[in-house]
């Protein structure tokens, strides 16, 4: 074990430089390929849930958050292999983009974090701060994000992601029942 302390490691916190972190893990395309390596195509379908479907989700205790969802259908020839949905969740200081792969039986096949953006705590709620990351993470190679260290702090909760996954599973099930993804 070797530990090297930075000069500013334990400077008075008010004077220590504060920074925010960001990591790009996977692009949307990379995540979809990773989840369904046998797929030849990913058809993008825009799904709009109607009022009755939204009510049904509400009855299941799922807040759909939006009626409009974009679902990628993984296909090999005419066969549907599954579905991939991308979403963002906002935590106290972080914006997390993630992807959920759903198998044809409706179960979660895989979850991958696409990117992680940490703010100083307030910017995360500002649309302008979030907008600067739109379209990021689409690099061709899987690589380490820029200026990235590993963060150690009180454990970050993944509750928002877990809730988001539940929402996506319910939305895809509702869309399939409605025939939107056939």
């Amino acid at each position, binding site marked *: *074990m*070797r*530990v*090297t*302390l*930075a000069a*500013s*490691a*334990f*400077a008075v*916190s008010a004077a*220590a*430089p*504060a*920074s*925010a*972190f960001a*990591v790009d*893990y*996977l692009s949307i395309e990379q995540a979809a390929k*990773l989840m369904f390596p046998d797929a030849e195509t990913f058809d993008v379908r825009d799904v709009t849930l109607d009022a009755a479907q939204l009510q049904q989700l509400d009855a299941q205790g799922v807040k759909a958050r939006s009626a409009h969802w974009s679902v990628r259908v993984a296909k090999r020839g005419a066969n549907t292999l599954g579905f991939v949905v991308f979403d963002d969740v906002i935590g*106290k*200081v972080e914006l*997390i983009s*993630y992807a959920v792969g759903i198998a044809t039986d409706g179960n979660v096949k895989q*979850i*991958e*974090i696409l990117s*992680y953006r*940490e*703010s*100083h*705590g307030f910017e995360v709620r500002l649309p302008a701060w979030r907008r600067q990351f739109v379209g990021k993470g689409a690099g061709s190679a*899987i*690589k*380490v*994000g*820029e*200026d*990235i*260290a*590993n*963060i*150690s*702090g*009180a*454990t*970050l*909760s*993944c509750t928002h*992601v*877990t809730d988001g*996954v539940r929402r996506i599973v319910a939305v895809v099930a509702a869309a399939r029942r409605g025939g939107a993804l056939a």
Partner: protein
Amino acid sequence: MKFSRRSAFERRARPLLGTIVDIGVRCDAATALVDAAFAEIEALQRCLSRFDAASDIARFNALPAGACVTPSAATLEVLRAAQALFVASAGLFDASAGTAPDGWVCRDGRLHKLHPKTQLDLGGIGKGFAVDRAVERLIEDGATAGWINAGGDLRVFGDLELPIALRDESSGASRPFGGLADGAFATSRFGDGARSRLAGPSRGGPATRGTAHVSVAAPLCIWADALTKVVALSGDTSHPLLERHGALAWLH
């Protein structure tokens, strides 16, 4: 080797262990290795998480006194470590979180419930254990360098010095801490609004009001993770258990 953005690390993250688990690996077949490491962590989570109703721990918690479960070998290993730490820390580290520390025992490969109130929670040691196991898996599978960071409980291996930043959860700001090679690091937050309390002056701790963070560096992540609790509860950054596990601690 210094960590650099041009290094050929595959880096991925998944929501696991109640947090975001970040894995970076340098290897030719990195994707398969990372997948296997995530699978290892998922399997351990299914044994250790009290939030998973089918886990060894949740099944134990649901038992009446006098009954027992047969846990996985991994669960038994974590429980043995927790029990050893309970004794060595004179009760500061308590996997029963104060419900009834002497109400459980492992005997003949079974986990027995002795007290109806005992509820086990491996949250203070399980993440570190899972990180160690998954790192060992990566090394066995041929990874030459990399890291696993389970929401702040992290371990670095191979020829790599990983920069580490500390985050203050109340402000969200991070600041550089330094570099870590061939070892583990964990941070816990204690005090107002946190699950754990920091020792006050009455227990020999510092006269810190509000919140504070405890960071521990150790060769293994299980000890880095668990010893943050011992340091916080004793308020002692030179607690004898640190030396026994080759660990260093900071209060910040």
